[in-house]
């Protein structure tokens, strides 16, 4: 969205904004292991990129002058990404994290020309000898948020402000709905897609549209806190996403699903320093400490809090999987049979709504 609004501006002025939106930043340290991060938004987005930047800082704090970290912010998910990644590799960064789904193909392309550099791509599904995928099972905290939403919602209608129709987002909608339906089997989720990761204006309008249609507990898979603010203004509830967003809207905030990247980033750095770079795909969740549901508000009834925490304990203990059957699809047909559960490959390519989600899933392409 940012790109097309800029493009409109560009039509008016006959100049391109995109190349100017990319501003490199260098963090200081001594010489050693050079690591670079490619960010989708600004570290000040208070959400997705903010969480990655906390992870980057954790590496710096832990390893001090053994590493030198760099990041480039506001990198659009288009040809610019390839240019930025190539530039970072050419500057001698030995480890490069590309932190958004849309960088997948650019990362693979650049990785071919820099076989000695290790690339780590977040949330993708294509790897290469020097491209390792890492991801966080955000659907786990989304499921727990759903349990709370199921308790809190009075109207039995939930709202979801979604970004792009890709599996990463679809499974969070599904998990949120399934969590809520453990409490109230009749609950439904309305979904609005905004085709952007970060656009406070549109996020707000989407939240307004959902609230207008009766949704009283919202979750968003976008990067700003505009949905929470809107919820507070309109007297409904919502959750924080990516980072702890309690302080944004104390009267509306029920809990936050957060990403925790620091541990993983530090492990990658340590492995590289020891000469044995991490090469295996990592898909961590609550159990691995890569995400969590935190800051459950006092607005949440005790029963809901207990139910969510009990489920969290089960997930941690490996006793519960979100995508374990029986799971019904939107039309009521069995998608996952009882006694079986979706494997990671299936979860990572999920393109269907569970029972209770309203509307039709737009196709990604």
């Amino acid at each position, binding site marked *: 969205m940012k790109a097309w609004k800029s493009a409109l501006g560009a039509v008016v002025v006959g100049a391109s904004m995109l190349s100017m939106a990319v501003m490199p930043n260098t963090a200081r340290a001594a010489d050693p292991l050079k690591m670079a991060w490619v960010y989708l938004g600004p570290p000040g987005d208070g959400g997705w990129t903010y969480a990655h930047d906390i992870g980057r800082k954790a590496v710096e704090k832990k390893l001090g002058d053994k590493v030198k970290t760099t990041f480039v912010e506001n990198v659009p998910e288009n040809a610019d990404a390839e240019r930025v990644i190539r530039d970072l590799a050419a500057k001698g960064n030995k480890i490069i994290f590309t932190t958004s789904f849309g960088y997948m193909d650019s990362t693979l392309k650049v990785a071919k020309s820099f076989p000695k550099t290790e690339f780590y791509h977040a949330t993708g599904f294509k790897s290469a000898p020097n491209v390792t995928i890492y991801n966080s099972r955000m659907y786990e905290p989304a499921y727990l948020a759903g349990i709370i939403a199921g308790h809190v919602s009075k109207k039995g209608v939930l709202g979801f402000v979604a970004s792009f129709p890709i599996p990463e987002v679809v499974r969070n909608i599904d998990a949120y709905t399934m969590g809520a339906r453990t409490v109230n089997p009749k609950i439904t989720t309305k979904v609005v897609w905004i085709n952007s990761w*970060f656009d406070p*204006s549109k996020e707000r309008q989407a939240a307004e549209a959902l609230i207008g249609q009766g949704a009283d507990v919202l979750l968003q898979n976008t990067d700003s806190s505009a949905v929470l603010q809107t919820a507070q203004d309109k007297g409904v509830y919502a959750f924080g996403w990516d980072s702890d967003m309690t302080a944004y809207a104390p009267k509306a905030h029920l809990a936050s699903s957060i990403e925790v990247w620091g541990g993983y980033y530090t492990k990658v750095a340590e492995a590289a320093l020891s000469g044995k770079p991490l090469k295996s795909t990592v898909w961590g969740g609550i159990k691995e400490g890569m995400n969590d549901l935190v800051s459950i508000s006092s607005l949440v009834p005790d029963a809901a809090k207990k139910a969510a925490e009990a489920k969290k304990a089960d997930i941690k203990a490996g006793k519960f999987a979100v995508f374990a059957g029986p799971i019904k699809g939107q039309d009521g047909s069995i998608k996952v049979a009882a006694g079986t559960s979706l494997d990671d490959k299936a979860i990572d390519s999920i393109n269907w709504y569970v029972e209770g989600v309203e509307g039709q899933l737009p196709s990604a392409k």
Partner: protein
Amino acid sequence: MLDSLTPLLASAVAAAIPLIIAALGELIAERSGVLNLGLEGMMLVGGLAAFVTVAHGGGLTAAVLAAMLAGMVLALIFGFVTLTLQANQVAAGLSLTILGTGISAFFGRGYVGFRAPASFDDLPLPLLREVPLLGASLFSMNLLGYAAVVLLGAVIWFLTRSKAGLALRSIGESPSVARSLGLPVTRVRYAAVAFGGAMSGLAGCYYAVAQFKMWQEGLTSGNGWIALALVVFATWRPARVALGALLFGGVTAFGLYLQAIGVHVSTFALGSLPYLATILVLVIISTNQLMIRRNAPASLGKPFFDDS
């Protein structure tokens, strides 16, 4: 049906207000012959100034003043570069956007992550709030929303009824003729640019302490460009700026509303609706060349060597 349309209209109005404020400011600047492309930058700096003010315990009045002042300072830098030093306005305006984006990002780092401690809340007008459809949208805006309506009236009056407005327009048409009549071209242009900056700052203030009540980098997410486009879209006429902003906010809100009620339409098509609408209107407008030429300031963007 009315029940569904009311929030839709409210959403459109809320999205349109900052666009109207910023675009009216730019309209005045452009009517004086100065093209300032730095709206996005001035809006961001104004928004941050307002947020910082309330974050440190300042009141809402102080926030509004700080935002307008911040926008104005940026605009005056632009004015100095283009009006005094005669630099290219397009290049200077783009630099201003980058400068404002950078400044707000840098100084805003410490203000991410919490709600504005004071904010403009909706003020439904007594009696009028009961009016169906309009009651919950037009008559339930926050103070800055009503200010935008007053601003619209004032700008229309200024341009069409006041002597100063006539002077401003004549300077925009032909600065050399205006100069020969004894009008202070550069001073008027400075004032127009400063006013534009103040309005952009105010629009930023709307985002930071009225609509979103928070600070995040890039908070305005490209809306400065939309406001800029609206001025052209409206063929430099204030009432059309307001209509265009409502259309823009309305079309976006309508697309999201369709999704919320479960109508299946391609989200990509929905996303491009506002732009398709823009193109359509531009096509319709451009069928009448005279209409554009009559209102477009003839000296727009051209430097003027004021030898006074």
